[in-house]
C-alpha cells in the first residue's frame, strides 16, 4: 500500500520537478523629477510677442525675444519643449477629419512645414537644461497657447531654440 | 427488547409508467439477538424492506427506528455514518472490489473509523479468521471460489463489529455446499457473537436457520413459524 501511495505521490509531483526555475531580469530604474522653479512663471502675457514664423525671419543669434505659439511636444525628464506657430492647425482642428489620437504631432501637415514653423524652448541652469518635466507647469500642456520670453539661439541649419526666462500659459 | 421497529411503513417506486407499492402500511418488530428470516416470492418487496432496515433507502410513509434512532428522516450523510457503525450488509453477490485483495476488501469499512494501521490489521485478521479465510488474505476476488467470495463479503460485513447483519439472498448464487457453509457461518455469528441477523431468502432450506420467520406477500407480513 505504501508503495502505491508513494507511486501516486511521485506521479503527481514529477511534472513540477520537470519545471525547473529560471531567473528574472530586473527593470530599469525610473527617472526622478522635481518641478520647474516658480520664477519662470509669467502671470500676464508679456508685450511685443511675435509668432514663431515671423520671428524666425527677422532675428539674429543672441537676440532677446518674446515668441508666441502652441506647445507641440515635451522632452521627457528635461525642462524643454517644442512650440509651433499658431497658424498651423493640429489635425483634430482641421475640418472634418477623423478623430486623431495624437493631434499635437500635426500629422496632417508636411513635416518640412512643421519644422520651419517650430522652435525649441529650454529652461536652463547655466549651460544645462534643468532635469525636470516642464509639462504640467501652470497648466502647460500639449497644444496650449504659450508666450515665451527669453534669448534666441539660432544654429546654421535654421533651428531656433529659445532659452527661456519666463513662460506665460494662456488659460 | 425490540431493536428494529417498523411502524406502518409504505414504500412506492416507479417502474416505467407504473407506480409499484411493494410495502403498504407494514409494521414489524425484530428483537436484539434474533435471527429473523423474511421469506416471500420474488418481487414481493423483501429486498425493499431489507434496504429500509439497512438505511440505504427511505420510506415514503411510516417510521423506522433501529436501536432507538429514527432512520426515515435522517440526512443522507448521517445515514452513511449510521450504516458504517451499526449495519453489516451481505448481498446476493459478494460485490467485492476486484482490484483489492480479500484483506483489503475486508479492511475497507475500517477506514471510516480513523483507526491505526495496527488496529485495522488486528480487526481484519479476526474477521478473516472468523470466516475461515485467513490463508486467503492476499488473494484477489478472481482467485477465490463463489463461496469464498461470499465469506469475504461476510468478513467485510462484520469487521466493524456492527450489531445488525442484513443479508439479501446470501446463498442465491452459490452451490449447495457453499450455501450450507455460508448459512452455518451466519448462524455461528448469530449464536456466538450475538449478532442480530435479518436475512431475506426465498429458499425454504435457508429459512430453517432463522429463529423467527415471516412471509411477505403482496405487501403483507405473516408469521410463518418458530425456530427449529
Amino acid at each position, binding site marked *: 500500500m505504501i508503495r*502505491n501511495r508513494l507511486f501516486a505521490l511521485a506521479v503527481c509531483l514529477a511534472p513540477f520537478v520537470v519545471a525547473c526555475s529560471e531567473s528574472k531580469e530586473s527593470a*530599469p530604474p525610473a527617472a526622478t523629477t522635481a518641478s520647474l522653479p516658480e520664477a519662470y512663471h509669467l502671470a500676464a502675457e508679456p508685450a511685443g510677442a511675435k509668432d514663431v514664423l515671423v520671428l524666425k525671419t527677422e532675428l539674429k543669434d543672441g537676440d532677446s525675444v518674446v515668441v508666441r505659439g502652441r506647445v507641440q511636444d515635451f522632452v521627457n525628464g528635461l525642462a524643454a519643449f517644442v512650440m509651433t506657430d499658431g497658424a498651423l492647425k493640429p489635425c483634430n482642428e482641421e475640418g472634418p477629419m477623423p478623430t486623431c489620437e495624437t493631434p499635437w504631432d500635426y500629422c496632417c501637415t508636411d513635416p518640412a512645414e512643421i519644422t520651419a514653423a517650430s522652435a525649441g524652448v529650454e529652461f536652463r541652469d547655466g549651460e544645462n537644461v534643468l532635469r525636470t518635466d516642464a509639462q504640467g507647469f501652470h497648466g502647460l500642456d500639449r497644444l496650449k497657447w504659450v508666450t515665451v520670453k527669453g534669448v534666441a539661439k539660432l544654429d546654421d541649419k535654421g533651428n531656433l531654440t529659445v532659452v527661456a526666462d519666463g513662460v506665460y500659459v494662456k488659460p | 427488547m425490540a431493536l428494529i421497529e417498523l411502524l406502518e411503513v409504505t414504500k412506492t417506486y416507479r417502474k416505467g409508467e407504473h407506480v409499484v407499492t411493494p410495502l403498504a402500511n407494514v409494521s414489524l418488530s425484530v428483537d436484539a439477538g434474533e435471527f429473523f428470516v423474511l421469506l416471500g416470492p420474488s418481487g414481493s418487496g423483501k429486498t425493499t424492506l431489507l434496504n429500509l432496515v439497512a438505511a*440505504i433507502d427511505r420510506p415514503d410513509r411510516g417510521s423506522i427506528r433501529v436501536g432507538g434512532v429514527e432512520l426515515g428522516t435522517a440526512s443522507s450523510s448521517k445515514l452513511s455514518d449510521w450504516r*458504517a457503525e451499526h449495519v453489516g450488509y451481505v448481498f446476493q453477490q459478494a460485490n467485492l472490489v476486484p482490484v483489492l485483495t480479500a484483506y483489503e476488501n475486508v479492511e475497507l469499512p475500517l477506514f471510516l473509523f480513523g483507526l491505526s494501521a495496527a488496529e485495522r490489521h488486528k480487526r481484519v485478521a479476526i474477521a478473516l479468521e472468523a470466516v475461515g479465510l485467513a490463508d486467503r488474505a492476499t488473494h484477489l476476488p478472481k482467485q477465490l471460489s463463489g463461496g469464498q467470495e461470499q465469506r469475504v463479503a461476510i468478513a467485510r460485513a462484520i469487521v466493524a463489529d456492527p450489531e445488525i447483519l442484513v443479508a439479501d439472498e446470501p446463498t442465491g448464487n452459490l452451490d449447495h455446499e457453499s450455501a450450507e457453509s455460508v448459512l452455518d457461518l451466519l448462524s455461528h455469528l448469530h449464536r456466538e457473537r450475538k449478532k442480530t441477523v435479518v436475512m431475506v431468502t426465498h429458499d425454504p432450506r435457508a429459512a430453517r436457520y432463522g429463529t423467527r420467520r415471516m412471509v411477505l406477500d403482496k405487501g403483507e407480513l405473516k408469521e410463518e413459524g418458530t425456530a427449529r
Partner: protein
Amino acid sequence: MRLLPLDYAVRNLGRRPTRTLLAAASSALVAALLVATAAFVRGLDRTFQGAARGDTAILLSSVAERDVVRSTVVAGLGELVAASVRGVATIEGVPAISDEIHMGTNLALPGDKRARPGFVRGVTERAFLVHDAVTLIEGRTPRTGEVIVGRLVAEQLGVEPVALELGKELSFEGAAFTIVGRFAAPGTTIEGEVWTPLAPLRGLTRRDDSSATFVKVTEPAAIAELELFAKRRLDLELVVIPTAIYYKELADYFAPIRNLSWALAGLIALAALFGGANTLNATVQDRVRELATLRAVGYGGWALVGSLAQEALVLASAGALVGLLAARLFLAGSSVRIAMSAFELTVDAPAVLAGIAGALILALFGTAPAAWRVLKLPVAAALKEN
C-alpha cells in the same frame, strides 16, 4: 469526510488498460500542447524583451511611423549625436552609437531557384558596442563583400545549417557575399539577421543615408538628452524611441498570433475535456454496483467523488509527465520562423507549469459529470445492476 484509500484509485487505473492509456495519452497531448503554446508565446515575448533595454534608444525618422526599415536618417547622424549629446556611453573611448541600414530583401544561396525573404543589417564595428547581446560564436567580423549570419538565419530561410557554414556564399541586391562569421544574440530577433558592413551596403543599394541610429546611454534618464537633441535639431526630423518601448510595440503587433495560439490550444483542450469527462462517466457506469456497495458499507457520496478525482488526477499527472518530457525533448532549442525573423521556443518553468496546470484542471473539470452521477446514485437500485 473519510476518503477511500489512495490505492483504490491507483489500482483502478489498471482495470481498463486501453481506456487508461487513451485517457493518459489525451492528458499527455494536452500538456504537451499547452507547453508548446506557452513556449511559443514566451519565446515570442522574450525575443522582444531581449532586445528591449532601458539604456538604449533608436533615432528614427519622424515620418517613418516607427518602422526602422522605412526610416531614413542622415548618414552622419551618429557623429552628430556623439558631438552634441551628453550621457552617451563610451567603451574604451569609443561612443556606443551605431548608424545602421535595416532592409528586408531577398536572399539567395548558390543554386537557389526561388527567393528567400530575409533581413539584412548594414553595420559598423560600433554595432557590437550597442547591441551587446550579440556575440560572435564563430569566425570574425565582416569586411567588404562579407557577411556574418545569426544563429537562427538557417531556420528563418528554411535551409539546412550546413548551407550557411563559414566560407559559403550568400547573395542579395545582386551581389555575392562570403560568410565569415556566425553570431548569437539570445532572446532577440537579431539572431535571424544577416550583418554586413554599412558603407559597401550603402554603395550597393545606392543610398546616402542610414535607416536609424542606435545609441547606448550611461543611464536610462540620459535618453532625455537624445530627445533634447532631436528637439534642437528639428531640421533632422527625428524621433527618439527607447528600445524598451520600440520592442514592446513590436510585441503588441504580434498579439493576435499569440491570442490565436491560445485559442487553438484552448479548443483542443476543450475537446480533451469532453473526452476525459466521457471516459470517467463510462468508468462510473462500469462500476455502478461497486460504488453502490461502497455507499452501503458507509462511504458518503463525496468520498467516492474524491476517489474518482484522485484517479483522474493521478492519470492526468502521469499523462502530463509524459507530455512534458516529450515537449522538453522535442521543443527545447527548436525555433520558429516569424515575419522577417525567427526565434527560439522557450520551454521554461512557466511554460511547463502551464502544461501541468492545464492537464490537472482539465482532469478536475472532467470529473464533474461523473461526480454528479455518483452523488445522485440511487444506491438500492444500483446494487441490483449487472
